[in-house]
């Protein structure tokens, strides 16, 4: 559209940004972001090459030992940044290769739709070649012949940047046949989605990639055994893959050292905060940085509000309390507190926010985004929404809270087909645990009393 654009468009246009100036970032300490420019422009190939770009591909492919790449990754213990924290190296070591196994696919999970999460967007919009380089290494290690970046449809800018970068890389011989004279061939296509959070679940993602309904697949078999079109496939998050080049270039020890003695998980993490804080944003910080440090970087709560609770890594993680702010945010520590690190992007809840209303909002999201495959999620979550709506309107009945307890328990891990419903259960379970009194206030009726119809049905 070339018409004169009202200024409002410019001023409110959203731009992904990192709240750390160039001066603060270096190759030694900020493997994910040190190349980013303060002006927020994408780092294109020339600049990327100037800043050590594709060095690790050169190195790994020259050495000619894919297994060494895997070993390196395993040793560095790069844990998946998509939310589950599974060791990427271990995952890669389980990919079927050799014998009469066909070469498979390397799939980058760029579906980023977890509420409260906005980190992959930054990497893709501003540093596409880092992702491409990570993917080449992943493909090399897993004997993948083709890669897809499964990008959510709304990330229009990411698609533009990635496609241009892929063209650049292909032009320069970093993609395509015989990469850098190594005999290894690999190429990448950007596949854009058409909505639906569940596409981020790795097996649902593969179904979606195949042009099907994004219902998850049963595991086993895992994608590494039978993934896209039944070929061995590896699915990794954008941030996970962006960690690979530095690990290969600098080694596992260096990577482990990045987090100092904060945690046994190595490396850095893109942490962030959203919600009513002064400066919501993103930072690359050592793994194991505490919530308090991150919140401080965000300038604390907006308008001097009180922090009531926070989600450590997206809507599908459990609520933590202010008292948890001093814990190192790594996978295991957060796990022990009845929550999960998830994506590591904090969502803060101010004191005056009703937990019932917030839970209603979260469950509306999960119910709406259920793929509809398995019963607890498909039919159980809408019931939680209705119960929460009733409680929110003071229309709750005695027994509703117990029913919510049971619904949360019945949507737990292992009981549903994929981790979507457990993701809905965890915040609900923790909210009911920590803030039960708020829910109790919504019970206005004895059990089984006739109701005026309709109870507000909402959008679910």
């Amino acid at each position, binding site marked *: 559209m070339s018409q004169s654009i009202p200024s409002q468009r410019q001023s409110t246009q*959203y731009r992904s940004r990192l709240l750390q100036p160039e001066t603060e970032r270096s190759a030694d300490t900020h493997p994910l972001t040190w190349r980013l420019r303060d002006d927020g422009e994408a780092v294109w190939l020339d600049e990327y090459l100037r800043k050590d770009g594709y060095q690790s591909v050169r190195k790994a492919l020259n050495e000619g030992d894919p297994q060494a790449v895997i070993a390196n990754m395993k040793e560095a213990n790069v844990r998946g940044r998509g939310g589950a924290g599974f060791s990427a190296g271990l995952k890669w070591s389980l990919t079927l290769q050799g014998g009469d196994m066909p070469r498979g696919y390397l799939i980058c999970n760029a579906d980023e739709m977890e509420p409260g999460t906005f980190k992959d*967007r930054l990497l893709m919009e501003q540093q596409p070649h880092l992702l491409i380089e990570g993917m080449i290494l992943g493909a090399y290690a897993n004997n993948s012949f083709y890669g897809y970046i499964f990008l959510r449809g*709304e990330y229009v800018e990411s698609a533009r940047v990635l496609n241009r970068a892929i063209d650049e890389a292909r032009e320069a011989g970093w993609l395509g046949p015989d990469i850098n004279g190594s005999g290894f061939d690999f190429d990448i296509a950007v*596949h854009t989605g058409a909505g639906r959070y569940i596409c981020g679940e790795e097996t649902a993602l593969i179904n979606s990639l195949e042009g099907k309904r994004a219902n998850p697949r049963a595991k086993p078999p895992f994608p590494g055994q039978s993934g896209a079109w039944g070929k061995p496939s590896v699915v990794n998050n954008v941030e996970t893959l962006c960690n690979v080049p530095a690990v290969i270039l600098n080694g596992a020890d260096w990577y482990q050292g990045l987090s100092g003695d904060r945690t046994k998980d190595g490396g850095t993490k893109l942490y962030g905060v*959203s919600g009513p804080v002064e400066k919501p944003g993103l930072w690359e910080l050592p793994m194991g940085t505490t919530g308090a440090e991150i919140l401080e970087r965000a300038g604390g709560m907006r308008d001097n509000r009180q922090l009531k609770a926070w989600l450590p890594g997206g809507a599908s993680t459990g609520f933590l309390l202010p008292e948890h702010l001093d814990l190192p945010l790594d996978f295991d520590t957060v796990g022990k507190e009845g929550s999960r690190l998830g994506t590591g992007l904090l969502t803060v809840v101010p004191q005056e926010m009703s937990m019932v209303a917030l839970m209603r*909002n979260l469950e509306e*999201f999960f119910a709406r985004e259920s793929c509809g495959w398995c019963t607890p999620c498909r039919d159980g979550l809408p019931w939680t929404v209705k119960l929460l709506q009733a409680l929110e309107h003071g229309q709750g009945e005695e027994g509703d809270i117990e029913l919510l307890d049971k619904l949360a328990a019945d949507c737990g891990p292992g009981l549903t087909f994929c981790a979507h419903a457990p993701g809905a259960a965890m915040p609900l379970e923790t909210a009911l645990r920590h803030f039960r009194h708020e829910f109790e206030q919504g019970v206005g009726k004895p059990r089984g009393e006739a109701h005026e119809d309709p109870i507000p049905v909402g959008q679910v």
Partner: protein
Amino acid sequence: MAEPVSTSTLIGSDGFELHPADETAILEQLKHYEQPQAACIDALKIVQRRHGWVPDDAIPAIARVLGIGPGAVEGVATFYSLIFRQPVGRHVVLVCDSSSCFLTGFDELKQALVNELGVDYGGTTSDNRFTLLPVCCLGACDGAPALMIDNDTYGPVTPDDLPRLLEGYP
């Protein structure tokens, strides 16, 4: 990689014809995948780009081009939230209703949108200019509350910003 399958059936065509350019674009997509079905979402988007939505008769037409069943195509078309199986206005306003926006003024923004446009979710303004829909977290949480109009993401957006923002989409 994948080849479209040619089917010879006794069933005749049902009238709807894909625009030749769209058909070409769809066939182009097939190159990226092992199987033609994979181009299904792309195909729906291509048709949607032309018509604003995916008309009923486009379903069997896409099925024919891809050599897959119309049931599968409709299954995909109705699964994904960004494929519209009903007509929409010239511009689609996707307002993020997920947690970070919810915590930072979604309710007011949504209400302002409803007031401004005179329609609720799923509605299209009488001048066929805007359709209002909810969307999951736009990944713009540090700019919450956020919304998207066509291909443009905005955030943070206050109710006051709206009138002039919408002006940009005639």
